[in-house]
């Protein structure tokens, strides 16, 4: 698995920074950020064409965090890729800075769309992909959604439009961790079968293990090779991944750890990073 080491290290560092940011802010969405971290590491570490020195390059690939609350995943990855100093994360959710709780394009370098209100990001990504087609540009657009977010009707409006305009330059990724704020997605509002739903809307559906870099890499490759329709990667993940007591616990959706819980989490995540770098 040596070839996956750079991505694994990036994700492990991202998890540590995410935990620290949420702990420092005493606020933030840690559970879904930990489930999405390996997906974001794969995108920014390998898949996407971006240049931290030129974040507004019109030819860059775009990423829309449609599950806009998972800034504790996005901001650390952007910082680790060099879009801004990791020290900026100390002001996560602080009125003193611009590291807003939900993704914010006007002040955070590398963020391509402001999001937070669920369901709107995927539509914006559709618009970006349509603009790319119109301009004859070869950039690709990626949008990350939560499985709970699929409850928003706008997601399906956007899905119809993406299919109508044959947006094969658009890849959606669903972070299927099976949990939302109030509990299991299957109980709050059953959304399965997600694959059949997207297929019925004209999308090419790819399944992946959201914590296996080989699986994610292959999924992104298949998505980029899909012609004539948008592709969606259903990435099976574990909410709270990497912290033993947070894994698969809905309660950690939007809660910050206290002192003791933080120390436990930090120790686990540091140990994981040390194992990778050994």
């Amino acid at each position, binding site marked *: 698995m040596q070839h996956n080491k750079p991505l694994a290290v990036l994700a492990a560092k991202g998890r540590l920074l995410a935990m620290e940011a949420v702990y420092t802010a005493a606020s933030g969405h840690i559970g879904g950020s930990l489930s999405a971290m390996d997906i974001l590491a794969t995108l920014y570490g390998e898949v996407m064409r971006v240049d931290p020195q030129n974040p507004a390059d*019109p030819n860059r690939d*775009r990423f*829309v965090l449609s599950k806009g609350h998972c800034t504790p995943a996005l901001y650390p990855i952007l910082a680790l890729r060099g879009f801004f100093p990791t020290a900026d994360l100390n002001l996560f959710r602080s009125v003193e800075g611009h590291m807003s709780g939900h993704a*914010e*394009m*006007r002040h955070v370098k590398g963020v*391509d*769309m*402001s999001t*937070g*209100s669920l*369901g*709107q*990001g995927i*539509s*914006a*990504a*559709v*618009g*970006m*992909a*349509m*603009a*790319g087609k*119109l*301009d004859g540009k070869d950039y690709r657009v990626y949008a990350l959604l939560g499985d709970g977010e699929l409850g928003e*009707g*706008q997601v399906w*409006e*956007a899905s*119809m*439009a993406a299919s*109508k*305009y044959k947006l094969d330059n658009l890849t959606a990724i669903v972070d299927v961790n099976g949990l939302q704020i109030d509990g299991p997605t299957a109980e709050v509002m059953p959304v399965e079968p997600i694959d059949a739903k997207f297929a019925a809307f004209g999308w090419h559906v790819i399944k992946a293990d959201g914590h296996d870099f080989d699986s994610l890499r292959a999924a992104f490759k298949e998505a980029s090779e899909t012609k004539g329709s948008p592709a969606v990667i259903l990435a099976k993940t574990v909410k709270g991944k990497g912290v033993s007591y947070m894994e698969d616990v809905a309660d950690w959706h939007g809660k910050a750890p206290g002192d003791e819980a933080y120390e436990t989490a930090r120790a686990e995540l540091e140990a994981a990073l040390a194992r990778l770098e050994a």
Partner: protein
Amino acid sequence: MAEKMATREAYGRAIAELGKTDPDIVVLDADLSKTTMTKFFSDAVPERFFNMGIAECNMTSVAAGMAACGKKPFVNTFAMFAAGRAWEQVRNSICYPELNVKVIGSHGGLSVGEDGATHQCAEDFSLMRVLPGMTVLCPCDANEMREAVKALVAYDGPAYMRLGRLPVETVTDTFPHYKFEIGKGVVLRDGTDVTIVACGMHVQMTLQAAKILAEQGVSAQVIDMHTIKPLDEALLVEAAKKTGAVVVTEEHNVIGGLGAAVAECLSTQYPVPVIRHGVQDEFGRSGKAMAVLEAYGLTVDVLVERALRAVAAKK
């Protein structure tokens, strides 16, 4: 014979014309292109026209994504759905990130007529005006609309513009000094006893009312306030100082619209009596357009009466 044309038609023709030469203009509609008049654009520039179907929320956020990639999107549907149904998308996808999207609300006000209350939007100015950074326009005739469309294409930022369904007489081109600029009201008639501030087709109504008032010995100043936000506060204060009484007339709820904006401005900067002539916090109903307007008191006669009341209220 003056030109008579609905502002929606003037808009449709103008955006089609400008779209031919500006490759960044894109037009989106939600299955209403024949009636919002974006069909002129889809005929002229089909490759940059996108029919997004009956899905206004998606259309609005899609436009935001296009703007984030340098396009100049104009999204079109009825005012009710542009400003109402998709309000939160306008707020969070467009205004908060300060994206260059023009939201066009056709069929504003009660003059939609027969379709009734679900389609008669008398709340759009209020809904759009409350959004930080939003510009809100309501041109009164075809000439002003053509100027407004040009100005909106040149303006980089979020904006909302209301269009009307009914054909209306073109009046602004008869004033030699007339000049359109976003955020600048135009004095169409000078007067000393009362100022009447109007937007949309109430401008034409106000010009008629001023004539009737003159016959009764009341000198009314008429301001065409095509821009509801940012409001031309300097002009309003100057007018209040001059006439000492203000009437605001609009096809909108008296809560939250142009009348409310004028009252907010003058109450803090130069308090004078302000009477708001508009829809009195009610829903509309079906009927022939002119009959509906009459049923809600949106007529020249009622406006004249309100102006006299404003004059009487002066200290």
